[in-house]
């Protein structure tokens, strides 16, 4: 569908509607229009107008993860949410913040830091084509379900989200949850929308639970000569009474050393004591290695999702206790495929990311994905977050999806005409 001019109904719905350019391309598909509403009400009016015009809509925040998933079946209108950039209410005494979807994580962090607080979401930052690196917008992070190392202690966005405002495909504005942490009134649509990749509705506003910024943090860093040794150390660190908030590993090459960093937070004395205890414990566990205690994370920290956009990024999720066998399985799968991916991830939380360069043979990448899935059985998944088109053509990006029929039924209810990011998500939803 090509639009040479801006439909009057869209122009009257929103004060910023413009023709799309090549910069607005979504996974290779160039839409014809971009609308940037400044309020939830404008977003609602745009959706109503778009529905009447039969336009397929792609919601967009900072665009850091727009290359994730399948290309859309149709893409007529990009709904740019970055003008919704207000921190609506920071109730510091309640440790709660309400923000519009287009607020950047970095901006929110600086606002919250003034009160000694933080949103415990430390997603990887990514350079934008047109500017500085960003960890993305609140709406984008929610829609992607993205999380960083702190997920070990604080979970993923759904665990911190306590209220949400959405706009449905037909323009209906709805909210669920609220601005109190403890609340079981009604269905929790936030859980459904977190990680829904823009396929159920627009997220225009969200309310989160906050945490105090800890007085001190320390990183216990060790380099192991084998992935198996690294897995043993992760297990020991989690079992020790040191309350880690993150446990990340990094292998630049599957043949090389495995670096492990465990983060501890809290009061100064407590962190000093616990980090010393953990370093000692690691030395006893694996006598050939020396664990260092640092006040800053290693350079590769938070880069789990920051693999090159042009390449393939595979997220492997598993039951955390299986880390050792999963690492063995990954090594075997990579060897069979003749590939040497960079491996990073939240080892203590059961999630790792494999990054394969664009130059890799697509058939080998597809083979790697298939071997990973075979090794994980039904207690884990290997999801291809993004891949170059030749790889995308060869693999099922999401793999087996439990209860896909129920997910399709949910999509059918929320977006019966399939106008929201159609075809981008699991099972072609």
């Amino acid at each position: 569908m090509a639009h040479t001019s801006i439909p009057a109904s869209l122009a009257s719905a929103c004060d910023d509607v413009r023709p799309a350019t090549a910069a607005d391309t979504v996974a290779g598909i160039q839409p014809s229009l971009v609308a940037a509403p400044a309020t939830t009400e404008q977003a609602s009016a745009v959706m109503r107008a778009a529905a009447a015009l039969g336009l397929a809509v792609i919601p967009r925040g900072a665009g850091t993860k727009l290359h994730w998933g399948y290309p859309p079946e149709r893409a007529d209108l990009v709904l740019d949410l970055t003008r919704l950039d207000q921190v609506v209410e920071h109730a510091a005494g309640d440790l709660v913040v309400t923000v519009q979807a287009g607020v950047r994580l970095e901006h929110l962090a600086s606002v919250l830091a003034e009160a000694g607080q933080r949103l415990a979401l430390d997603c990887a930052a990514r350079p934008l084509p047109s500017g500085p690196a960003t960890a993305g917008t609140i709406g984008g992070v929610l829609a992607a379900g993205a999380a960083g190392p702190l997920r070990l202690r604080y979970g993923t966005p759904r665990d911190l989200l306590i209220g949400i405002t959405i706009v449905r495909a037909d323009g209906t504005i709805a909210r669920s949850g609220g601005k109190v942490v403890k609340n079981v009134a009604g269905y929790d649509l936030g859980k459904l929308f977190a990680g829904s990749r823009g396929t159920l509705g627009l997220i225009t506003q969200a309310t989160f639970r906050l945490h105090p910024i800890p007085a001190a943090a320390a990183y216990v860093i060790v380099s192991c000569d084998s992935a198996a040794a690294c897995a043993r150390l992760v297990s020991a660190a989690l079992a020790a009474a040191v309350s880690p908030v993150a446990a990340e590993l990094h292998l630049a090459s599957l043949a090389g050393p495995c670096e492990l960093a465990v983060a501890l937070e809290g009061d100064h004395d407590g962190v000093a004591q616990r980090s010393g205890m953990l370093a000692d414990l690691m030395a006893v566990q694996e006598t050939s290695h020396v664990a260092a205690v640092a006040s800053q994370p290693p350079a590769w920290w938070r880069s789990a999702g920051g693999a090159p956009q042009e390449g393939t990024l595979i997220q492997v999720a598993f039951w955390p206790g299986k880390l050792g066998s999963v690492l063995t399985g990954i090594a075997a799968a990579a060897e069979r495929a003749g590939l040497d991916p960079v491996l990073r991830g939240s080892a203590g939380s059961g999630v790792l990311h494999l990054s394969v360069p664009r130059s890799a043979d697509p058939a080998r990448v597809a083979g790697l994905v298939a071997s990973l899935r075979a090794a994980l059985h039904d207690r884990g998944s290997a999801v291809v977050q993004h891949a170059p088109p030749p790889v995308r053509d060869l693999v099922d990006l999401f793999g087996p999806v439990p209860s896909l029929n129920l997910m399709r039924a949910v999509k059918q209810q929320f977006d019966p005409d399939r106008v929201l990011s159609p075809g981008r998500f699991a099972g072609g939803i």
Partner: protein
Amino acid sequence: MTQDVATLAPRLAAICGKDAVITDPLELATYECDGLTAHRCRPGLAVLPQTAAQVADVVRVCAQENVPFVARGSGTGLSGGALPAADGVLIVTARMRAIVEIDAESRRAIVEPGVTNLAVSKAAQPYGLFYAPDPSSQQVCSVGGNVAENSGGAHCLKHGFTVHHVTGLEIVTPAGELTWLGDGTGLAPGYDLTGAFTGSEGTLGIVTKIIVKLTPIPQAVTTLLAAFETTGQGGAAVSAIIGAGILPAAIEMMDALSIEAAEASVACHYPQGAGAVLIVELDGPEQDVLAESAAVRQIAADAGAFEIREAADPDDRAAIWRGRRAAFAAMGRISPAYIVQDGVVPRTALHDVLDRIGELSAAAGLRVANVFHAGDGNLHPLVLFDDSSEAEAAAAEELSGAILDECIRHGGSITGEHGVGVDKSKYMPRMFGPDDLDTMQLLRCAFDPAGLCNPGKVFPTPRLCGEVPGVRREPHPLVTSGQAELF
């Protein structure tokens, strides 16, 4: 056209065994209410399956015959969420109580829905782990019921609610299909149906297995009891604790009337003359707990505490908690009847709302005892009344509703942990608009288009799940998958 549900008994007996089907009216009376006894309804019949496959077969029969069905765990719910349907089947999961697996390395357990909450922690204890959500009924309440209600507990301030600890669910859909939501990782591809299902109050299907996260038992736990002259001072201490960046496992407060009732009931020996007591529990690594408890003691003293006790061993801790745990039941000592309310306000509004409750209480001429999870603003005002007077019962109900209005006015919620059930569906439109409620029910329509699964709960008016406006481009997925047919 709904037939007499009793005629289903032979078919259900063929699935679950004869002794698993209850048709005797006297025996059925056992199941006519849950923990909220104000709502009663005898089920058409009750069935106690032992396996997930039996649950699926029973639900399939109900779906075929268009008979409503309601799941029930231990029946401890406080909002009538397990209130049976007179013309329906009550599916009791009490016989499904196997702990299927404990994977200590992964800190996960797989349990059946009838397993009690405390049994999970007991089974995990040898591995140095526990199941964190701890509703006060944890000795008897079931994990299946916890999932339905998204149960919390005193310690959810730090450790989170049921939804933060569930990573996979095996469910029977309202069409009778046995399926898994999530895979135990918390990161299964697709929509987070595990999260959306948790807290849906039994309206989206019946849970038959639950994968829960287990948490390392904290190295150190210490419990402080601080006595104040007024709840205002106690509230100021709570704000100061949170403001200092301390996140206790629990912060509980009781006012003078609830202390009086607890003393009469369990002789908890709280400090004489206390107008409010604050219970603060800290857990974590030893060094951190030591530092935090010193800080909390100082904050409490600064806020005007006239006595502070500290318990670091389990017996002393139990003594401090005894009065708090007994608080609800203890009301029987000072009042013929009482309503347990469950509202939430932003923590910073606690003081204003307590004042307002005092005014409402005085105006209605009814006593209100306040017991609350102060750390997260979850109030449990107990409205005391004499149930031999109809007028007083009505006034108590009205006062209870007025307290909820105050919670909503301050940006809070009508329920923090007891659920909406049948009891509070009428209050939902005060908190949510028609579009909000309509949108929530889209989820209901996706799971239960026929509206047979725990009908009449949560929402004041059911949404019709017929054809939605717009052109349908493909057959309904439930039809395609053979789960449903159009008629």
